[in-house]
């Protein structure tokens, strides 16, 4: 595969390309950023990246949103786009909210106890308390 070919495909699959970059940015934020609050925000970005990719998989050029306008006429699969990815993403969004809330609650408790959001500092303090 030539580089030009690859670039052309990347441009055509722009949603997938963007979500790949977003995913890595979010994951890097989750792993390397020391601020707990930002880890939580980065988690939101990472999840959104996956959802973006999944939704773009369901899109078909020139088809309508999967809501049947006239139920008396049998729907044709040629008219509506694929509804399955949207269903999966809907599930995923709600899951990610509960995780956001949970990790924020943990962050707040840690801030209350150690007065810091820096994970390294918090770990150092908690180990010192233990010894």
């Amino acid at each position, binding site marked *: 595969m030539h580089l030009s070919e690859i670039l052309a495909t990347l441009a055509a699959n722009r949603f997938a390309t963007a979500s790949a970059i977003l995913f890595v940015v979010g994951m890097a934020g989750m792993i390397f950023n020391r601020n707990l609050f930002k880890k939580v925000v980065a988690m*939101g970005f990472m999840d959104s990246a996956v959802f973006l990719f999944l939704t773009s998989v369901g899109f078909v050029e020139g088809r309508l949103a999967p809501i049947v306008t006239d139920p008396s006429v049998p729907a044709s699969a040629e008219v509506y786009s694929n509804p399955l990815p949207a269903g999966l993403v809907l599930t995923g969004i709600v899951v990610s909210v509960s995780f956001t809330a949970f990790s924020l609650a943990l962050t707040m408790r840690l801030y209350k106890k150690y007065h810091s959001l820096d994970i390294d500092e918090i770990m150092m303090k908690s180990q010192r308390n233990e010894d």
Partner: protein
Amino acid sequence: MAAVIQTILLIGLIVCAVAANFTRKLLPTVIIYATFGTMISVIWLLLRAPDLAITEAAVGVGIDSILFLVAIRRMSRLDKTGEETPQETAEETGEGAAEN
């Protein structure tokens, strides 16, 4: 035309995600997060997934940012040094809810 709008929005998403990692304060991070949510819900409209757009606008932009703001308010109250104005935060929270 559609492709151009989509590309602009996608670049905006990436810029938001990178910017959120490098802001100094926490409040801008939340605002960037809300911007990100708004953009992604527009993208979902473009991708013909209106269910997702509504849910993201309500959950990702509304509830998530409210939670972040409340967390910041609670934590800054724990900071004894801070004399932050509750009114300001309350207004923002109200706006977040009204966006729904």
